[in-house]
């Protein structure tokens, strides 16, 4: 995509070039027209002068001079000539044409005025010619001047237009850079950009206000999550402590112990649910920092090792295939660990004993991707669609987890601009695809 100022400059130059080109094409035609008109006027002027001379001195004055029936005169450079001769014509001539004349064995194009008139019953033809080369010469001179002027004009105005466009859109570029450097609304530079252009000023102001508003909302959400956290987790904590102490009683019957343990399990589920929802809310309101930098292979290996106990127990073979590594920057390691962990854990859960899981890292379609592929039970389309929703279908197996883990993974992926794609076929397996944006 082109920058605005380049677009402006490009348009300016193009429009000038087109205009100049049109001018260059039209100039010879216009010049010729003007020149012809001018020449013709000159020729007519000269005719009038000669007619005046003939009226004053009589036609014989010219004829005697040459002792002939015709009179001719031209200047040294043969730019102009005048001729007068006796002629017999049925009609009066009065027209201007372009013809060739041979003067001193030289063929020259002339614009010639032919004018016939009667004096004492005799008809004379007056020819006044102007050489076309002299006319063309002046045309060429003018064209050259116009060329030079046009080039200088285009170059100078293009430079000045460009610098003006640059200066004009500078505030806009500053705003763009500011936005680009803003990973979260909290770090947005609130200092005004400063522009004399009303629109940019308004844009900057609106953006700053928007960021302030988002910050306020985040702050509010932060307070809300903090309060919810406190209000919900404290009673759970009280209950848990009471149940644990109950379990410690020496004379507790096995029956009561079992029921107490089951209550603790249920309480744990409640705790996981509350913490999961709080985690999603915290990620979504940007309460986690993205400050870590590490190689993705390290993280993937760590996740794999963490879950190996479970996969080994189910005799599931996890194959790691890293064809290319990637250094992640400005990310949250703990969150990304959780993201991969939940998905791999899910894969192990739904892969039968003796199955296979492949973790592939590398470039696919020019984008860095991490794929977690299992040959487990797979899902139908309906299940795939609801995979990332926070509360899944009712008939899911609660023994296999609260089902919120994948929703957390999705939230974390969104937070890091990672795209998750799922391909699954019932009976064949599931493929999770993490596509990194850059």
């Amino acid at each position, binding site marked *: 995509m082109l920058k605005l100022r380049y677009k402006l400059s490009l348009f300016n130059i193009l429009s000038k070039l087109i205009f100049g080109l049109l001018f260059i094409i039209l100039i010879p035609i216009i010049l010729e027209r003007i020149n012809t008109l001018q020449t013709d006027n000159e020729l007519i002027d000269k005719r009038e002068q000669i007619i005046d001379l003939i009226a004053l001195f009589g036609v014989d004055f010219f004829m005697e001079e040459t002792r002939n029936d015709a009179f001719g005169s031209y200047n040294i450079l043969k730019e102009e000539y005048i001729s007068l001769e006796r002629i017999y014509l049925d009609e009066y001539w009065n027209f201007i044409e372009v013809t060739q004349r041979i003067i001193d064995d030289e063929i020259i194009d002339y614009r010639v005025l032919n004018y016939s008139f009667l004096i004492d019953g005799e008809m004379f033809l007056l020819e006044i010619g102007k050489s076309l080369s002299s006319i063309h010469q002046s045309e060429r001179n003018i064209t050259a001047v116009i060329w030079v002027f046009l080039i200088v004009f285009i170059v100078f105005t293009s430079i000045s237009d460009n610098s003006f466009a640059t200066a004009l859109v500078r505030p806009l570029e500053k705003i763009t850079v500011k936005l680009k450097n803003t990973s979260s609304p909290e770090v947005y530079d609130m200092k005004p950009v400063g522009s004399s252009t009303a629109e940019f000023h308004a844009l900057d102001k609106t953006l700053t206000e928007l960021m302030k508003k988002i910050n306020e909302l985040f702050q509010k959400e932060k307070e809300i*999550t*903090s309060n919810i*956290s*406190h209000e919900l*987790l*404290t009673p*759970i*904590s*009280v*209950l*848990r*402590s*009471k149940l*644990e*102490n109950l*379990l*410690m009683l020496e004379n507790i019957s*096995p029956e009561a*112990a*079992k029921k*107490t*343990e089951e209550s*603790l*399990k249920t*309480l*744990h*589920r409640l*705790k*996981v649910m509350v*913490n*999961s929802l*709080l*985690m999603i809310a915290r990620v979504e309101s940007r*309460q*986690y920092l993205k400050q870590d930098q590490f190689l993705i292979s390290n993280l993937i290996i760590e996740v794999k090792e963490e879950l190996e*106990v*479970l996969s*080994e*127990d189910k005799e599931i073979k996890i194959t790691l295939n890293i064809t290319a590594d990637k250094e992640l920057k400005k990310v949250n390691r*703990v969150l990304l*660990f*959780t993201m991969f*962990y*939940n998905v791999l*854990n899910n894969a192990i859960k739904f892969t039968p004993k003796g199955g296979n899981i492949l973790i592939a890292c590398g470039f696919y379609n020019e984008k860095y991707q991490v794929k977690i592929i299992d040959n487990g039970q797979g899902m139908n389309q309906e299940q795939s669609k609801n995979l990332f929703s926070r509360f899944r279908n009712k008939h899911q197996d609660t023994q296999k*987890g*609260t089902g*919120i*883990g994948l929703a*957390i993974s999705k939230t974390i992926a969104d937070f890091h601009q990672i795209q998750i794609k799922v391909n699954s076929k019932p009976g064949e397996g599931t493929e999770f695809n993490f596509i990194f944006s850059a």
Partner: protein
Amino acid sequence: MNVLIVEDEVGLATEIAEYLTREHFLCETANTGLEASEKIAVNLYDFILLDLGLPDYDGFELLLEARAAEYNPGIIIITARGELNDRIKGLDTGADDYIAKPFSLAELHSRIQAIARRKFQVDNKEINAGEFIININSRKIYYNEKEVELTKKEFDLLLYLLINKNKTLTRIQLYEHIWGNSLEDQYDSNFIDVHIKNLRKKLSAHAPSDWIATVRGVGYQADI
């Protein structure tokens, strides 16, 4: 050892006190920040369990007061706000550890023990279990002076059972101790069963490991 429990939720403070008393601690509770501040200034404590979210007092203020006490208590912060900053700020301000609600009492106990080992150089660095000797400092387990290779998680699990010996620990308690709270989705008691299975297998190669008992329907227990 003397413990001060600063917690505005009376129900929770009582339960913590009951559990720790059973573990032979002398417990006092303070349900307001003001009461806590007075007790910290007047009495001597080995441990202070401090809830940061007190309605009448800034938790960090109280933390500074506790830190300034000459008797140099071990301090564990308790909070339910779950704010990451609280954790960092708390540890920076001089707390020894941090525990998030809802925590397990066994976990709290093991954290206290860990701080005590570090802080007060408690002598019993070696624990006997069956025919094995466990060195807490070097984190190694020996049979007949020969080391038994355990993974980090297996060792943590074993140590946790031993510190809370003769008490049943539920799978959830064990799970949380090893993996913490960060992995929210885990409702897999399976994890612990697999680890215990592996642990027993490694120990049984040398000597009987039946002192790691399964308590049907509840969890596991180290009978020593």
